[in-house]
């Protein structure tokens, strides 16, 4: 039953993918082609990356509202500097540093994660507006060809890298400690897990993920906007939820969140091809979120009854 809830993301993704395929084929009279898959991949990459970072934080029992600000500031710097490889490295360092600030305040300052990141969200968003007051900027075509090539699915390679990164992280000492801190902080402390450093680490990683998302965002849209990050706050939380990561901490995986993020992106396409008025879009997204979670809970309950 526990497994079922943790696999929620994959089940939801599978169901959404089937719906997408069916709705697309019936409305256009042909199955989706490589162009469609590529478009989905490139538009979903930023959310996938933010969701991975968010899931790490949520697994430790925290939450990161500042992802919106970190994405914004990284989008702003990338676009304002033209996205040269050197600047992109600087952006990644900047994102990790911004995340580390959150982590240090949460872990050593003992301020609740939701409040810490609420305050830094405002600070980082302000910084983004400072750097890029009006939407614009650019990114090197060469960088774009490597990150989100509109003709070749380079995004797949990056997605594979994310999956591989998680696969490795999960098996490192740090990865084990992330789960230990999330499932029982007191017990983790008692067996010698450096809880503070683990927490600081996950927020730094979340910042790094948001920075990567920011770079991908500029690469896909070919320009920057200082408010680009704001939508990622709630959508990354929704991805994590649909992906079966529990807010109580210690359960779920970043891969579930990746599945959740892709499912949430696909839902928009499903609604579009089903001919739903775009004005009603968020109604169905909201229902999707609640129903996905309810199904997960119901399935877990049923499984528990059967074993009991």
């Amino acid at each position, binding site marked *: 039953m526990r497994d079922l809830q943790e696999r929620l993301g994959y089940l939801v993704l599978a169901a959404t993918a089937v719906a997408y395929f069916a709705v697309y084929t019936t409305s256009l009279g042909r199955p989706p082609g490589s162009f469609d898959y590529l478009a989905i991949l490139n538009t979903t990459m930023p959310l996938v990356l933010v969701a991975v970072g968010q899931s790490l934080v949520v697994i430790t029992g925290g*939450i990161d*509202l500042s992802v919106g600000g970190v994405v914004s500031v990284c989008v702003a710097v990338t676009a304002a500097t033209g996205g040269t490889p050197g600047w992109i490295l600087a952006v990644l360092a900047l994102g990790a540093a911004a995340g580390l600030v959150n982590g240090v*305040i949460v872990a050593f*300052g*003992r*301020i*609740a994660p*939701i*409040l*810490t990141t*609420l*305050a*830094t*969200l*405002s*600070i*980082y*968003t*302000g*910084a*983004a*507006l*400072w750097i890029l*007051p009006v939407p614009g900027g650019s990114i090197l075509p060469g960088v774009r060809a490597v990150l989100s090539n509109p003709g070749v699915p380079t995004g797949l390679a990056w997605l594979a890298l994310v999956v591989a990164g998680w696969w490795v992280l999960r098996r490192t000492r740090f990865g084990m400690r992330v789960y230990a801190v999330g499932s029982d*902080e*007191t017990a983790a*402390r008692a067996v010698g897990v450096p*809880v503070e450093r683990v927490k600081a680490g996950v927020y730094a990683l979340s910042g790094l993920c948001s920075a990567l998302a920011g770079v991908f965002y500029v690469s896909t849209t070919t320009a920057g906007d200082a408010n680009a990050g704001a939508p990622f706050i*709630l959508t990354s*939380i*929704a991805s994590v*939820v649909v992906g079966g990561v529990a*807010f109580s901490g210690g359960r779920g995986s970043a891969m579930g969140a990746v599945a959740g993020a892709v499912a949430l992106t696909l839902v928009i396409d499903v609604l579009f091809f089903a001919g739903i*008025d775009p*004005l*009603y*879009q*968020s*109604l*169905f*997204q*909201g*229902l999707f*979120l*609640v129903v996905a*979670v*309810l199904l997960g*809970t119901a399935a877990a309950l049923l499984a528990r009854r059967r074993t009991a």
Partner: protein
Amino acid sequence: MNRRALYAAAVAAAVLVVGAVLTPGLASWPGLRAVLVVASFTGFVAAGQMLVVLVGGIDLSIPWVLNAAAIVLTTTSLGASGRLPLALALAIGAGLAAGLVNGLGIAWLGVPAVVMTLGMNGVLQGLTLGLSQGLTCDDCGHYAPSPLRDLFAGTVPAALLVWLGVALLVTVLLRLTVFGRRVYATGVNPRAAFLSGVGVKGVTVALYTLSGGFAALAGIMLVGYGGQASLGLGDPYLFESIAAVVVGGVSILGGRGDYVGVVAGSLTLVAVTTVLRAQQVPEHGRLMIYGLVILAILFAYGRERAHD
């Protein structure tokens, strides 16, 4: 009253005094009145947010509950004073109904508060946009009936008396009634409260229902203040309501806090923004300073207890 509420009041007083020194206009009644009126909107949403935070919950549906109520008010009153009572009842009723559904989902279906209220926010956003055709419907352009707009006229606007009424109501409810004791008992330890006979589920449902009602009230007052409803009216109040609650000394973990503190918290946040605007600090500077002020306050009295 708890100690943190006193700190919150002291911070609000300090911010207002500093503001009055920097911006002489703030020292006059019209200047202070403007701050109080704008702070009252935050005060209304924060009243609801505080009630759910007291039991360790959170309400992320505030923005579109507020916006939906505002649009219900203008489209049902059609600017006619005679239709105002009906319109008020429908707008508040819509808010209470949304809150009730939130509460039922959280208490009885066991959906996490973040998920349920985030989903509700999406559902209401979709419904509001769809039914009003993106606020282009025939009845959408109506002004608020004049009695509602008159609430903001005069030396002492009646809107401030409404806020005073809300403050008294919430304080009496929490501090002088059995229900209030149950709220704090549930917030401190839901399990212990349940075992000593508190109907934890009923309390939770009641609080989310009230939160919906207060968000609707804020929407109604904002329509009276601005004259017309608009889309995105509630967006700034999601994070602002949470900030006002914690700056007001309410523990985000639940069980501790008073509305007096939240009033002070709302005043602090609005006064900071007002003073920065008066000093012609650009938007990016305002955002950054706003975040830093919240962080500073959190460090002063929003920290959690040390581990062992």
